[in-house]
């Protein structure tokens, strides 16, 4: 009896539609967020993440409405983010129905944002998203959708963010994202060992074996994927059955 490893589908949204693309390039429509959320909730997803990848100010009301409609479908936790720059932005997504807020670029630029959110909502509600890219013998933190280096070491940033009040890390490997060649085991294991909070691995998943590997060798507490679930390359149910058969503790849907 112990904590189950979590499988988390991610909806990258632009306004009221789910979109997908490699490194934010060549976005394609991938469906209705509300319908996908209902499907994943029923299939046994452990949580859901909704990201506003456009994160433009004028479309924020549409995104908040998407959070409200998605939250109404869920009996599991919901994390929302994308373009969260202020405490007020965080409040808006929580009020719309998110249980956790995820921050990325704005937190790198102003780490106090993490403490502000953590004081108001508790550490369990603050998810720091780190986009990391291999650079020689370490990993660089990338910002602005993985396009720009923040010239900061990912392990150092993770430790600092946890000290500031982040309760979880959503770690995306920029090198693996969109490649479907498997999660970045070395990166995830390094971050997971560097911090005391749970780590969600993201980027590169395709096969069920990739998930076994990231839990058993990558020390991930949860694993996130998007298009393989949207395209039904993987069903959450069969993935979890595979994980259970491989000795990974998961919550099997009824």
């Amino acid at each position: 009896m112990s904590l189950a490893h979590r499988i988390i589908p991610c909806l990258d949204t632009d306004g009221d539609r789910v979109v997908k693309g490699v490194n934010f390039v060549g976005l394609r429509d991938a469906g209705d967020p509300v319908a996908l959320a209902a499907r994943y909730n029923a299939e046994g997803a452990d949580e859901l993440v909704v990201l506003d990848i456009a994160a433009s100010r004028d479309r924020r009301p549409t995104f908040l409405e998407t959070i409200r409609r998605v939250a109404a479908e869920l009996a599991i936790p919901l994390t929302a983010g994308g373009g969260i720059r202020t405490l007020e932005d965080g409040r808006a997504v929580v009020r719309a129905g998110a249980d956790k807020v995820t921050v990325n670029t704005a937190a790198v630029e102003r780490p106090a944002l993490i403490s502000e959110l953590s004081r108001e909502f508790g550490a369990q509600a603050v998810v720091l998203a780190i986009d990391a890219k291999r650079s020689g013998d370490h990993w660089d933190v990338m910002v602005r959708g993985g396009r720009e280096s923040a010239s900061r070491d990912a392990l150092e940033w993770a430790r600092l963010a946890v000290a500031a009040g982040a309760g979880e890390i959503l770690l995306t490997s920029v090198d693996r994202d969109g490649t479907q060649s498997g999660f970045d085991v070395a990166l995830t294991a390094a971050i997971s060992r560097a911090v005391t909070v749970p780590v969600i691995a993201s980027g590169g998943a395709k096969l069920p074996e990739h998930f076994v590997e990231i839990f058993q060798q990558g020390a991930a507490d949860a694993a996130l994927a998007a298009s393989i679930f949207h395209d039904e390359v993987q069903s959450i149910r069969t993935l979890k059955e595979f994980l259970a058969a491989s000795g990974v503790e998961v919550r099997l849907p009824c």
Partner: protein
Amino acid sequence: MKVTILDYGAGNVPSVERALQRMGAESLRTSSPDCISGAQALLLPGVGHYAALVRALDEKNLRAPLVGAIRSGVPFLGICLGLQVLFKSSEEASQLQGLNLLPGIVNALPPGVKLPHMGWNQVKKKRESSLLAGIDAGAYFYFAHSYAALDSNGATAATCSHGAEFAAVIEQQNIYAVQFHPEKSGDSGARVLQNFLRLAA
């Protein structure tokens, strides 16, 4: 029967409301002392910091009516912080007084495991549990917390373990409380809420 949800400003009230709606239960959210005193059943949801909850209860003058209603036998369900506040105090804000309806204090979960304790975990029954009636022994519930009631006492109906064993389900007369989030725990969580509604009816 109507469930009165204490809305002290920081809880995840909408999630709880939606969960109750899904099972056809009527609910009313309130921060009015009078509505609490006249409630048929009370629900105290909670996320965030212990101090925020305790301060809000005091600032809104909800402590006395809440304690009064619980002492007079109104069925009460506390969720997460709503469980922790039943005790005398919490290490998260040791200068503040809890509701002191249960003996003991709330402790920080010990280091050595990933904290917060976040995700789906199983519970172990200590005795017959009305809240867990009809739920499989292996069922998972969603937890998200760093503090817990480690002191096992007679009120604990089921425990969970993460670094240490702690109270996951509390049942004492009309006082019911869970450390996990039933409103976020899928079908097994819905069943816990249904069981509470049945007990409160």
